[in-house]
């Protein structure tokens, strides 16, 4: 390359005015053996893989909309919290005896600290010249152990989580407007056994969901009040009013908290 005195530049810049490199790709004969140029040969192959990947990605996106639960309610202490799936292994770790309670520091700081620190410093912990995994059994073994324990912990966390209950707790609830002046509302308020579980506002409480959650007919509601739902823990025979009151209340519940029209 031409340097030093006598060199011409574009204006007062440092870009040389002459003998600039022509924009001609190297001939294919300059690629020895089975090597190939990055552009366009290799990049085309990469992008074809990328295009297939993208199609799968978009299908996933269309098939499963991103979940959105109800708006955060910091006062709802009954909610079972769960981090995003790739933090589950750390979360699960904190459930074991020697990583929680008095030993929380071990589970929250020491173990992850050692693991991630070792990952960061791997080039200095494994200094030998060998690159094949079988020729450096300690490094390979430790990594396999780490991967296995991450998979195990994630699996344990998924298996012990009550997904059904969490989905129910997080579900977006339709606003139910309860007609508090209705006769049926007064009947409900007189039934301590109902309030005890379904809450004073009929919208769910400590032990049971909102009474309006499912779409039952009047007959089905009466049947449930009388016989309970033993599978889900609702006992039978709790209603202490008359049959007439039972009917009014059932009709009110079946009609989503409003006195049925035409009465």
């Amino acid at each position: 390359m031409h340097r030093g005195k006598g060199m011409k530049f574009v204006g007062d810049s440092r870009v040389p005015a002459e003998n600039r490199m022509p924009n001609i790709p190297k001939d294919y004969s300059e690629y020895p053996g089975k090597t190939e140029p990055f552009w366009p040969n290799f990049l085309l192959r990469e992008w074809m893989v990328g295009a297939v990947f993208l199609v799968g990605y978009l299908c996933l996106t269309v098939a499963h909309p991103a979940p959105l639960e109800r708006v955060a309610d910091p006062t709802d202490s009954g909610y079972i919290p769960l981090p995003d799936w790739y933090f589950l292994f750390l979360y699960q770790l904190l459930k074991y005896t020697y990583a929680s309670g008095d030993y929380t520091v071990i589970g929250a700081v020491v173990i992850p600290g050692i693991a991630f620190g070792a990952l960061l410093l791997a080039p200095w912990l494994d200094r030998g010249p060998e690159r094949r995994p079988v020729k450096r059994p300690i490094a390979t073994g430790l990594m396999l152990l780490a991967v296995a324990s991450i998979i195990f912990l994630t699996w344990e966390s998924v298996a012990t989580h009550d997904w059904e209950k969490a989905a129910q707790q997080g579900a977006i609830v339709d606003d139910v407007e309860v007609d508090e002046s209705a006769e049926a509302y007064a009947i409900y308020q007189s039934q301590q056994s109902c309030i005890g579980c379904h809450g004073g506002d009929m919208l769910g409480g400590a032990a049971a969901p909102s009474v309006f959650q499912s779409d039952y007919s009047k007959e089905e509601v009466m049947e449930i009040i009388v016989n309970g739902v033993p599978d889900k823990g609702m006992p039978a025979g709790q209603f202490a009013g008359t049959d007439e009151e039972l009917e009014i209340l059932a009709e009110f519940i079946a009609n989503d908290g409003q006195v049925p029209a035409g009465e």
Partner: protein
Amino acid sequence: MLQKIYDWVDERLDITPMWRDIADHEVPEHVNPAHHFSAFVYCFGGLTFFVVVIQILSGMFLTMYYVPDIINAYESVYFLQHEVTHGVIVRGMHHWGASLVIVMMFLHTLRVFFTGSYKKPRELNWVVGVLIFFVMLGLGFTGYLLPWDMKAYFATVVGLEIAESAPVIGGFAKALLAGGEIIGAQTLTRFFAIHVFFLPGALLGLLGAHFYMIRKQGISGPL
């Protein structure tokens, strides 16, 4: 026409050497899936970068509707998902992309580890890669809070409890991240700033270093 524009720029900036260097560099046989199918493991890094690009784009578009404020955050996410055309797709891309980045990056890390590619002279690039890994986890953690729904809120509560359990600096770290005693309005704006400005800025710098070192050193040889 295009040629003329290229020549005009090239005359002033001499860009040919830079782009020819990238275009003409030799890609060795052992990373090319066309020659050895098992070489598909060398695609994970590129795919990670591809998803990162989609994450940056979809994230930029999402901020056109999103409001980082405890009263409006949920409403705005609900609105963009249910009322805006293709909102469900754009938010879905960002949501699933976050998981795909982690998966792809994990696979890429394992490939680099098991091929011993972090050894001399590539130690620094490994360190930068692990730092990128941490930044990605940070992006995942801070982004999870932003929709301000039940799982977002309580996952953050748990996450910050874990931070608090660290000895000596625990309380300080928690207060710094949460922006106060309560996990609430200030936590959300903080997480938003970290998620949208601080960590992406760090990520871009680290990615630049990562790619520069790959270009400088080349891909590690066959086993």
